[in-house]
């Protein structure tokens, strides 16, 4: 038996997808032109699926900072944070993020995935309880496999479901850690955080919130849902990423826990991997300055979200429950989603396609993400393209003109 035979199920699913002539998992950005455009399949394509919420990947000040850092300190650190890989700039970045949140401590990781993986699995251990939302990101699920704590799932965005599970734990000894996300990555919905926090307080549970998709987008200062909901002090651990709004790569966790720094010598995903290269640290520090100095980016983002969300909704598409920088468009099945995705690409628009098992409740989605850098024209075009294909594929009702044409038959 071959080593990879155990993946047979996924292989057959994948070949089914590929048989359509479209492989969304092997798409190549031949050349990225800007935060909103790239050449794909030799063609200029509008990007509406890149998590680039503020469009900072091409911000001149961030690019200059990165270039300068390379000249000053080279291309990489070639070592871990606990060996030769902690430069003054890594420490400065940690201080800046801590100050941004008004928290005492911050650890910077090489990716957000590693931040979740390492932090969550080290906060709880044997005899403790880890309670996670059913729609948690893969990095949170993977953390569950690296801890001895008992892991219990509660229903997505359902404080009553969490409460039932905390109640059932009764007076068992052991810490309780509840893991939430500011904005969920597939449907763009945010957690009812105030209600969750109230439940956690009642049962003396710690709260960790992953603000990966809400950094910059939510709160008066862009701290995320914790700020928007006024519960910053009740979120004991806040995790985030540099790979979306900040346009680079890397992750962080901030906290006021006095013993937080012990995690630097217990967290394997921090200790046993190289630290971020100087260029990334420099561009992230600059991006954070841009986020602070330009709150209008947040306004642009939400204006753009409204344009896309309301535009698609008016045409009859079934969307995620609320406005968010991620707009998930529901499609009836997997193959149709792939076909739709391919037709969009052929028409010059790139979005993400998400199908089971990567999606909650077995749904198939076209996952669009909005950027402050999108122009209204770009988003109007996107709605037009999607509407045309949606009608052609029978996903949404035909437009008035088409209905009229049908009536004359």
């Amino acid at each position, binding site marked *: 038996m071959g080593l990879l035979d155990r993946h047979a199920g996924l292989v057959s699913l994948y070949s089914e997808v590929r048989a359509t002539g479209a492989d969304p998992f092997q798409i190549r950005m031949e050349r990225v032109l800007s935060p909103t455009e790239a050449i794909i399949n030799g063609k200029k394509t509008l990007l509406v699926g890149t998590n680039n919420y503020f469009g900072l990947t091409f911000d001149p000040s961030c690019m200059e900072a990165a270039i300068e850092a390379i000249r000053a300190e080279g291309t990489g650190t070639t070592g871990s944070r606990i060996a030769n890989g902690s430069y003054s700039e890594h420490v400065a970045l940690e201080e800046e993020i801590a100050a941004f949140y008004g928290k005492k401590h911050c650890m910077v990781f090489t990716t957000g995935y590693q931040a979740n993986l390492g932090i969550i699995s080290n906060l709880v251990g044997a005899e403790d309880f880890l309670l996670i939302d*059913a729609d948690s990101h893969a990095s949170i699920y993977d953390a*569950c496999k690296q801890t001895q704590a*008992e*892991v*219990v*799932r*509660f*229903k997505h965005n359902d404080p009553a*479901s969490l409460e*039932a*599970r905390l109640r*059932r*734990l009764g007076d068992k000894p052991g810490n309780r850690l509840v893991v939430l996300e500011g904005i969920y990555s597939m449907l763009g919905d945010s957690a009812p955080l105030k209600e969750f926090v109230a439940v956690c307080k009642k049962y003396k549970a710690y709260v960790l919130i992953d603000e990966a998709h809400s950094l910059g987008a939510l709160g008066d200062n862009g701290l995320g849902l914790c700020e928007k909901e006024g519960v910053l002090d009740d979120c004991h651990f806040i995790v985030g990423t540099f790979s979306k709004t900040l346009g680079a790569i890397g992750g962080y966790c901030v906290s006021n826990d006095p013993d937080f720094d012990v995690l630097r010598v217990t967290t394997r995903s921090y200790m046993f991997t190289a630290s971020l290269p100087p260029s990334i640290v420099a561009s992230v520090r600059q991006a954070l300055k841009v986020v602070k100095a330009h709150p209008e980016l947040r306004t642009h983002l939400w204006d753009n979200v409204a344009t896309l969300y309301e535009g698609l909704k008016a045409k009859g598409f079934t969307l995620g429950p609320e406005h968010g920088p991620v707009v998930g468009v529901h499609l009836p099945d997997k193959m149709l989603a792939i076909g739709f995705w391919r037709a969009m690409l052929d028409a010059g628009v790139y979005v993400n396609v998400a199908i*089971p*098992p990567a999606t*909650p*409740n*077995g749904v198939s989605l076209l996952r669009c993400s909005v950027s402050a850098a999108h122009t209204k024209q770009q988003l109007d075009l996107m709605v037009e393209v999607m509407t045309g294909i949606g009608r052609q594929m029978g996903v949404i009702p035909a437009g008035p003109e088409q209905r009229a044409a049908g009536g004359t038959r």
Partner: protein
Amino acid sequence: MLREATNLIVENDDMPETFATVGAITRAEVMGEICHHLAPFQIGEKPITGATVITKDLAIDSLAVMDMVMEIEDRFDVSIPMNVVAEIYTVDELADTVLKLRARR
């Protein structure tokens, strides 16, 4: 005698919704509830029994198994930790787990 899922579903359908959280529960009730939630994943005519291996004999992926378990948890007011779910293979084992956790409450 091994009773088939379909019988149990019919039996269960007559029970009041609130039954689970008051007083003792029987194995048949737990089996009925599990089979009810697994019925949509049945492959062909093959009945769901206690010996049914959940992820093998049914068209259900691991995420859907966890979602199904959440429904069972709420019906019988128990929590089955994910690491325990991972070790459950058959319908019988799931039912036994629920009964064991109920007894410990």
